[in-house]
């Protein structure tokens, strides 16, 4: 008798559990956003609880209200960009130009390395080893203090050149890996149609290689934007430099560094989202 009773209870409990489970599962499927939000909030609370006591000990006086002045300037004639936004525009300018140059340098170097000419391979190897085995900061200084007077170029061009040469070296390796990942049969099929070498690359190899390495190229672009912060060391008023100046004027150390970091974060997350959408579209194409 008691056994039957117990079994009944057991059954009903397990039924309830499966029901609950199903319920939860439905929630999970229907509202992944809700679940993720809860998880995120729990996680952040824990982090804040851990950090909060230390923050109190610092006795830092938060003055977030002063920050907007550094983003937007209110003048008599209206509203204009504040120092941080001006810095952002310089950072974006440097990044966009360097990105274009990086792709060009990357392609050229990859093709040199894959060419049959020993001289071309040698030149590209020397370039790669020099760039990859010295710090970017030193390259930037060399470019600005030594090479730019020789070439007669200014601050901004030398920063862009240094940055492009640095990222171009890594990009060329990415592009090269994409090209050599294309199987031999593709080359042979293209050659057997009588396509000249340039067209084999342009129509057959590069489009496929590009799809292969798009995620790696994206992370290289993000690295470039982050690395561009180093140009502040040669007194270019980019986002980082503007932040530093603002801090020395106001001692809003935390607020401004947080803001600067957040701006980099937003740009890079937006960039990777755009690339992801692009990637998904390409995937849809070749299924």
């Amino acid at each position, binding site marked *: 008798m008691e056994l039957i009773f117990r079994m009944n209870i057991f059954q009903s409990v397990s039924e309830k559990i499966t029901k609950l489970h199903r319920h939860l599962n439905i929630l999970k499927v229907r509202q992944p956003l809700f679940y993720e939000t809860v998880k995120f909030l729990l996680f952040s609370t824990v982090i804040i609880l851990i950090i909060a006591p230390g923050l109190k000990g610092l006795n830092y006086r938060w003055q977030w209200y002063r920050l907007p002045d550094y983003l937007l300037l209110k003048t008599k004639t209206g509203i204009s960009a504040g120092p941080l936004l001006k810095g952002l525009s310089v950072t974006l300018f440097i990044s966009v130009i360097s990105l274009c140059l990086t792709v060009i340098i990357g392609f050229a170097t990859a093709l040199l390395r894959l060419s049959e000419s020993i001289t071309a391979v040698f030149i590209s190897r020397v370039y790669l080893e020099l760039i990859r085995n010295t710090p970017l900061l030193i390259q930037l200084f060399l470019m600005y203090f030594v090479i730019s007077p020789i070439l007669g170029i200014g601050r901004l061009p030398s920063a862009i050149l240094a940055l492009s040469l640095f990222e171009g070296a890594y990009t060329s390796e990415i592009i090269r890996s994409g090209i050599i990942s294309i199987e031999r049969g593709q080359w042979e*099929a*293209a050659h057997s*149609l*009588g396509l000249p070498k340039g067209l084999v690359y342009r129509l057959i190899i590069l489009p496929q290689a590009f799809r292969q390495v798009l995620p790696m190229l994206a992370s290289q672009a993000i690295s470039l934007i982050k690395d561009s912060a180093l140009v502040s060391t040669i007194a270019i008023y980019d986002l980082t430099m503007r932040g530093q100046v603002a801090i020395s004027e106001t001692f809003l150390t935390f607020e401004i560094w947080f803001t600067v970091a957040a701006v980099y974060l937003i740009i890079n997350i937006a960039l990777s989202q755009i690339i992801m959408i692009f990637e998904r579209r390409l995937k849809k194409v070749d299924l």
Partner: protein
Amino acid sequence: MNSKITGDTIISTKNISKTFSRDIKALEKVSLEVKQKEVVVIIGPSGSGKSTLLRCLNGLEEIDEGSITIDNTPLDGHHHNRLKIRTEVGMVFQNFNLFPHMTVGDNIRIGPRHVRKQNQAEADQITDELLKKVGIYDKIDAYPRQLSGGQQQRVAIARALAMNPLIMLFDEPTSALDPEMVGEVLEVMKDLAHEGMTMLVVTHEMGFAREVGDRIIFMDEGKIVEENSIDDFFDNPEEKRSKQFLSKILHNGGC
């Protein structure tokens, strides 16, 4: 039996040799003449140099010695000659090698558009005709990965034919296919043979060889061991090695 073959010699190789690294003699002094409209079947054990021979004929592999002339153009070091020969020699591979990032239509259009420099309308017309001919016109906008092996191989044949070649080379075109798809590809090839295309076909499909082959070449260890008419080769092979090879493939159900 060779009544249709009246034309001139279109492929001529003289003593061609090809050695790969570590003394692998893939081809050793191979001489071969093929006349217009001839269908030559090439057989031989694995590693005997059949693929290498075909690949040398359109310059995918460079020969170490000897000479190759195709339609009166020597396949020498000249880049220009090599490209010209490739436009006249179509090649079909064991693994299809379609371009995966292009639709079926674009795969076929690429030769007419970018090599033959025909305009869009002409290229479209050729593509439509060829796809109808190989029986997959409805797949013109599909991507290669959406097709079966047999369909992919038929697209590959259409892609090569779109260049309007004088010669077609087939390197084991049905070996990578499921058995039920072999027939559809062989049908397309038989049609081509009946239309008078000059063809060199590496295959173990003996039914195909008997039906449309004019001549058979048996290779072993980089050399042509026997060259014979199809019927004589099967019924009355001259060489001992040919006999051994034949009995092997016939036992394995090679027909």
